[in-house]
C-alpha cells in the first residue's frame, strides 16, 4: 500500500508488461501482451474467440495457476505491486477482483449467501450495509429469495457483478458480461457497469466480444488476436478506425472489400 501512495497520478493502476503465458509447459497462448489500465477508467479488451482475452484476465487474477498455466515472461503490476507471482486469493486481497466468464455464481446458495461470499476477504462489520448498496444497483436481486441457480442469465450476471462489489475492490476485471444475454439486458448490464465506475470510482477492465457496447462504455480499447495486441487506441480512435469498423462493429467502407484488401489487413496486423 505504501508503494501505491508514491505512484504518480498518471501511472496506471494495472500495467501488464510484455507477458507470455504458457499452458501445460508447452502451449503458448499469449505472445508478449502489454496493457495499461489507468486509475478510474474503463478499458476494454476486444477480440475473437480464442484470442487469449480470458487468459489475459486469468493471468492478472492469478487463476491461471489453477489451470496449469503460468506467466513465463514479463510481469504484471497492480498498484505498484507485482501480482503475477501471487496466488489468486492474495490478488483479491490486494483489491483486484475478477468476474469470471459464464458468471459462475454458487448455484446452490441464495443471493444473499453469494453476496456474503464476495465479502470473504473483508474484516469489517459493514457487510450488510454493502448488501443494501448492491440491491440499490440491482433492485431485482432483492426480490429473489430462492437458490441463485434458478435466477435468469441476466440476474446471475448482476449477482456476479454485485458479488464483486461486495469485496470493495479497487478494480474489477469483467470477462464477457454480455455473454448469453438478450440485447435489452446487455444494455442494462452495461449501463450499470458504467454507473458503478462513475459512482464508486472502480477501475474496470472489460473483456468483450460485443465490441459495440464495450467501446461505448470504455475510454480506451485494446484489440487482441491470436495472443497478441494488434491495435490499441482511445474510444474515438477505435470507433473511427476502418478496420475496427469492418471487423468488429459491422459496416465500415461503403464499397465491399475484396479478398486482396482483407489479406492486406491481415498482413498489416502482423506488423503492428
Amino acid at each position, binding site marked *: 500500500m505504501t508503494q501505491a501512495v508514491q505512484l504518480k497520478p498518471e501511472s496506471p493502476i494495472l500495467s501488464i508488461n510484455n507477458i507470455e503465458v504458457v499452458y501445460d509447459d508447452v502451449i503458448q497462448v499469449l505472445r508478449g501482451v502489454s496493457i495499461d489500465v489507468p486509475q478510474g477508467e474503463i478499458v476494454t479488451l476486444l477480440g475473437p474467440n480464442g484470442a487469449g482475452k480470458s487468459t489475459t484476465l486469468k493471468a492478472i487474477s492469478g487463476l491461471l495457476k489453477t489451470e496449469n498455466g503460468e506467466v513465463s515472461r514479463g510481469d504484471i503490476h497492480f498498484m505498484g505491486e507485482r501480482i503475477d507471482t501471487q496466488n489468486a486469493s492474495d490478488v483479491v486481497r490486494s483489491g483486484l*477482483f475478477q468476474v469470471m466468464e459464464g458468471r*459462475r455464481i454458487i448455484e446452490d446458495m441464495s443471493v444473499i449467501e453469494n453476496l456474503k461470499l464476495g465479502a470473504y476477504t473483508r474484516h469489517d462489520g459493514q457487510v450488510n450495509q454493502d448488501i443494501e448498496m448492491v440491491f440499490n444497483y440491482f433492485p431485482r436481486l432483492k426480490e429473489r429469495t430462492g437458490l441463485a441457480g434458478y435466477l435468469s442469465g441476466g440476474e446471475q450476471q448482476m449477482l456476479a457483478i454485485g458479488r464483486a462489489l461486495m469485496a470493495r475492490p479497487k478494480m474489477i476485471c469483467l470477462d464477457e458480461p454480455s455473454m448469453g444475454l438478450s440485447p435489452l439486458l446487455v444494455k442494462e448490464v452495461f449501463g450499470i457497469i458504467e454507473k458503478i465506475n462513475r459512482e464508486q470510482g472502480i477501475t474496470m477492465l472489460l473483456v468483450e466480444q460485443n465490441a459495440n457496447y464495450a467501446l461505448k462504455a470504455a475510454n480506451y480499447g485494446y484489440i487482441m488476436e491470436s495472443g497478441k495486441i494488434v491495435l490499441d487506441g482511445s474510444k474515438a480512435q477505435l470507433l473511427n478506425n476502418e478496420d475496427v469498423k469492418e471487423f468488429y462493429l459491422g459496416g465500415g467502407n461503403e464499397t465491399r472489400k475484396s479478398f486482396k484488401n482483407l489479406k492486406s489487413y491481415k498482413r498489416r496486423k502482423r506488423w503492428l
Partner: protein
Amino acid sequence: MNFELLLQLIINGLIVGLLYGVVGMCFVLVYKSTQIVNFAQGEFLLVGAWVCWAFLTYFQLPFFLGFILTLCFMAAFGVLLQMIVLRPMIGEPIISVIMVTIGLSIFFQSLTKWIFGVSPQSYPQVFDTQSVAIFGLNIEFAYLMSTVIALLIMVSFFLFFKYSKHGLAMRATAFDQQVAQSLGISVKQVFAMSWGIAATVSATAGVVIGMVNGVSDSLSSIGIKVFPAVILGGLDSIVGAIVGGVVIGVLENVAEFFDSQYLHIGNMYDIAPFYVLLIILWFKPYGLFGTRDIERI
C-alpha cells in the same frame, strides 16, 4: 415376539445411528470439500478416544478439561495431517490418495496399539447415574448424553454452514474450487479446516462411544460402518449422512433382534449393514467413486 426388547433395540439403534450420522457427516465433509474418500475416518475416533483416555487417567484431569484438550489436540491433528500428508497429494490420481488414507488407517491403528496396548480400557466414571428409565426402558445415561451431543453437533454444523463466513467458503469450495479462489478463498485453508473439523467432531463421537463401551481397537470399525451410511445417504449430502446413519443404526439392531429371536445365524449386528451396502452398490455400481453420476437435484 418380545416387543420390549425390540423397542429397546430400536432406541439403541437410533442413539448409535445418530453417532454414525455424526461420523458420516465428517466423512461427507472431507469428501465434499477435498474429494478424498477418507478410509482413516475411524481412526479419528480411535485416536481421539485414546488421547482423551490418557488425559483422564494418566494426567488425572477432570473430564471436561480433558475433553476440551482432546478436541484442541484433534483439531491440530487433523490440520497437520492434511498439511503434511495430504497436501502434497493434491492433483495426484484419486486411487493414490485413497491408498494413502488406507495407509494412515493402518498406521494409526498400529500406533495406538503400540502406545496404549492391545487390551480395551474403560473410562473413569464420569456421570453419577448409570442409566435412566424413560417410559419403562433402561437407557444408559452416557447414551442419553451422546444423543444430546450428537444433536448439538448437527445443529452447529447447520449453523456453521448456513451463517458463518468460513462455512460459506467451504460450501463454495465444494461447489467450484476455481470460483472459490476467484473470491479470495484460500482452498488450502479450506482443505485443512475440513480435516480439522472432521477429526475434532469424530473424536467427540469416539469419546462418547468410549465412555460406554470402553476404548479399544473396535472403535475404528465405526469408520467402516459409516460407509453404508454415507453411501445410503448419497455420499455428498450432509443430511443424507445423518439419515443414512440413523437407518443403519436401527437396521443393525433390528437385524440383531430377528437373528437372536428366530434366525440364529449369529453376528447379524455386524454384517447386516454390509448386506445393505452390497444391495445399494448392486443398484448403484458407481455410487462410491462416480462423483459425476451423483446429481443433486
